[in-house]
């Protein structure tokens, strides 16, 4: 008896070709009026030959993307406990607001008397962020978390240069996200790493030893990437400042403490906020994000252009260094930042309000601790005690089962859920980092727990092969990443050109 369908389709899982393979030359999905007669002023540089774009009509295009969408998992489909990524529900009100005429159709270089409402909105968004963090100023322009890190470090460097010596090093904990050292490098610093203590927190003694006159900045994620609050943070801040260095906080995990702890009370000098994490703006399969950076008084003079100022009832953008009041270190991005993301984040903050945002952190932490307690009997927890908004396990529980963290994650795909973050942070072996967020119901957590416990039992019952072969029911099974990297095929080429 045949086991495969004739088409390769598996019920609702439809095989979909690339748009280039659906080319119907001359076809188009957009009707324009005729091209008006006009003088050609392209300077003799008219494009010659075909570009190679395929021709498809609107129904074909709609079906193509509909089918592609069905090959994706998303937070709209189910629990997405990707640690460090804060995959929470993305309210649709935010999308509606960002598309309002008068916002989406505003050009960044319109005269400022025609964009007063937009600047008011930016200013309002900035005010929410400053109040929630208890920091005096915010640079709104960075495009994502990593870009915010770079922005914060540039301000640090500019401040130190002003004091006469930029110093040479940035310290980061071993558990730091890869963007931290990468950003330090882009800011001209070398990177040294600080080990963690037994309890998963920064080793303050080692930190103090390393804090010499060459250290420009200490970058710390708090809560850290093991899901733990750095309980010695006030002493850390003091030690950093005593050494004449600045204290950067990676705010990727702000969701754990929003409305409960204000980072400005912790002695930090700057922190980026991923609006696409804590403030619910969609990840969109990889972006766009937005990474505003809040600054302490010490670094405030160095914030980059542009920024909005309010004079009476009027708003104005300060767009160039010469007309700025402080000593801006430069510019991070074209125009004024990820405005469309600000609209979404503001819509979210206004919806929840100060009381709702506080509840967000409390529910996020409650959900993570619930997972921790329900799973720690069967999985191996890396650090005991309470956690914040995410809980870290390592692969000790899989010892001698022949199952790896990767296999375990792939088996979860067959259960119809997205796995946790794997192999990050690097401080424990075979990490599994789970962040449920506050937008999961108890019922959804219970179902997830049941699946994880069931799989754990299966893993311990001599079923390595089941895991090795997983996933079986996803649109694709395991893909050969080694082959992809060895001989990269990064674009479609017409069959005739291939040979």
């Amino acid at each position, binding site marked *: 008896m045949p086991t495969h369908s004739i088409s390769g389709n598996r019920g609702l899982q439809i095989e979909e070709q690339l748009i280039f393979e659906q080319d119907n030359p001359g076809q188009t999905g957009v009707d324009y009026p005729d091209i008006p007669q006009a003088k050609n002023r392209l300077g003799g*540089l008219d494009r010659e030959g075909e570009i190679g774009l395929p021709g498809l009509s609107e129904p074909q295009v709609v079906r193509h993307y509909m089918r592609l969408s069905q090959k994706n998992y998303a937070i709209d489909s189910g629990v997405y406990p990707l640690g460090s990524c804060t995959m929470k529900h993305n309210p649709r009100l935010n999308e509606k607001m960002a598309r309002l005429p008068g916002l989406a159709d505003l050009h960044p270089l319109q005269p400022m*008397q025609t964009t007063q409402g937009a600047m008011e909105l930016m200013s309002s968004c900035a005010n929410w962020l400053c109040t*929630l963090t208890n920091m005096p100023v915010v640079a709104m322009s960075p495009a994502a978390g990593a870009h915010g890190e770079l922005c914060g470090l540039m301000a640090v460097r500019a401040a130190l240069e002003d004091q006469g010596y930029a110093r040479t090093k940035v310290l980061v904990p071993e558990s730091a996200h890869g963007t931290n050292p990468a950003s330090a490098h882009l800011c001209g610093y070398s990177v040294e790493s600080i080990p963690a203590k037994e309890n998963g927190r920064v080793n303050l003694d080692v930190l103090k030893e390393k804090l010499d006159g060459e250290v420009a900045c200490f970058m710390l994620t708090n809560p850290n990437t093991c899901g733990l609050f750095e309980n010695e943070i006030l002493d850390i801040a003091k030690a950093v400042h005593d050494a004449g260095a600045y204290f950067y906080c990676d705010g990727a995990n702000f969701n754990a403490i929003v409305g409960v702890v204000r980072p400005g009370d912790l002695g930090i000098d700057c922190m980026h906020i991923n609006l696409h994490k804590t403030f619910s703006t969609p990840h969109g399969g990889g972006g*766009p994000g937005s990474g505003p950076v809040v600054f302490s008084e010490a670094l405030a003079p160095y914030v980059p252009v542009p920024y909005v100022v309010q004079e009476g009832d009027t708003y104005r953008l300060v767009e160039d260094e010469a007309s700025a009041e402080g000593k801006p270190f430069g510019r991070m991005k074209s125009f004024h930042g990820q405005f469309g993301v600000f609209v979404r984040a503001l819509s979210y903050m206004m919806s929840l309000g100060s009381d709702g945002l506080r509840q967000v952190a409390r529910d996020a932490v409650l959900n993570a601790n619930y997972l921790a307690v329900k799973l720690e009997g069967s999985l191996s927890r890396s650090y005991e005690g309470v956690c914040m908004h995410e809980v870290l396990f390592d692969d000790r529980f899989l010892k001698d089962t022949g199952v790896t963290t990767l296999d375990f994650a792939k088996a979860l795909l067959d259960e119809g859920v997205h796995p946790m973050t794997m192999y990050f942070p690097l401080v424990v072996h075979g990490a599994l980092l789970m962040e449920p967020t506050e937008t999961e119901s108890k019922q959804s957590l219970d179902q997830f727990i049941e699946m994880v416990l069931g799989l754990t039992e299966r893993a311990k019952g001599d079923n390595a092969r089941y895991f090795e072969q997983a996933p079986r029911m996803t649109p694709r099974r395991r893909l050969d990443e080694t082959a992809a990297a060895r001989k990269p095929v990064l674009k*479609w080429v017409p069959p005739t050109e291939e040979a």
Partner: protein
Amino acid sequence: MRYLPLGQSDREEMLKDIGVSSVDDLFVDVPKSVLLDTPVDLPKTAGEMQVERSISAMARKNLGTSQAPSFLGGGAYRHHVPAAVDHLIQRGEFLTSYTPYQPEVSQGTLQYLFEFQTQVSMLTGMDVANASLYDGATATAEAVMMAARVTKRKKAVLSGGLHPHYRDVTLTQARFMDFAVESADVDVEGKEDLTALIDDKTACVVVQNPSFFGHVKDLTGLAETCHEKGVLLVVAFGEVVSLGAITPPGAMGADIVVGEGQSLGNAVNYGGPYLGLMACRQKFVRQMPGRLVGETTDVEGRRGWVLTLSTREQHIRREKATSNICTNSGLCALAFNMHLTMLGEVGFTKLAKINHAHASLLVDRLEEISGVELVNESFFNEFTLRLSKPATEVVDALVEKEILGGIPVSRLYPGDSDMADLLLVAATEVNTVEDMDALVNGLKEVL
């Protein structure tokens, strides 16, 4: 609160299971002195209606480009985006997924990014393109750093026709990397010759085409000069639609191409989010920043896609990575990919031709106004005018007539008095004859 599924009884049950009496007990690691016991001083929870009212009120204080004849460009262009595009990008499977870390359940994202990379390499005439950067300005700075890695040299030459924000972002980055940047004099007329600035210490030359002032230039000579000295030619663009009408950078000898992709699929959004594009020659691909999607097969031999060459990236290489970028412009890339798919070869080239024709017709009419002089000999959909009065005054007077008449160049070159009378004007397919009438009549009255 509508976004929070836990009810009070759920919370109590969960606390019991955890073995603590209150959520406060879960915050024991936080020093007492910094723990807030009440909400911060900001407005309280609000329903959809209230939020919608507040944000709409702010929106109404603005004059949107769809509400007035509008001729603004300067690196951000209003185009017609087909209805299907905005509908489809809002499908939850696209909108609410993360970066495709689990390829088996992310083939939708990976496939459209592979299509996107292919489209960008076709448009630019280059071998390979990445899966997007933040915007045109950051892409330019990334290209300069990439050129430095490839050539192991530490100096860049920037054309005077480069968008001032692209220049400033590059200068900011360069300053912190101890990298020398020489910016040529501002090139309003489009007549600069960069040869004298190029030597064997130069890593790259960055030129924009069409330039910030709108000039369309043949770069083949410059490419030859660069290559003779082992210098890379980086070509930037602010208007991707131009590539439907003019010779692509790849055909003129570019080594790296960067630009702004906002025009396809994405609204002007008061400046963001936008879409950084980057393409290069095959041999430089391992020095590229950003994510790359590659083709492969699964264990059953079926074609599929994965993120690849990730040893360039921060999560593997940390401080040795080619860039710190992580989150990029995924959904904007999807909108670009869809819009271009809707257009196809016929639609895209027609769109480009309509843009050029509209700009050309507008120029014919503007040149007849006394007090208006065209600076450009060539242009695509944007050009520079020299007015008989300061451009800011003229633009402000046009606003009084509800016309968004262009960008005073001085806004981007503050303090440079030579720029005071220059106005940058763009026309796209959305500008009607009535819009053009309004601008022409408005200018006649104002000048």
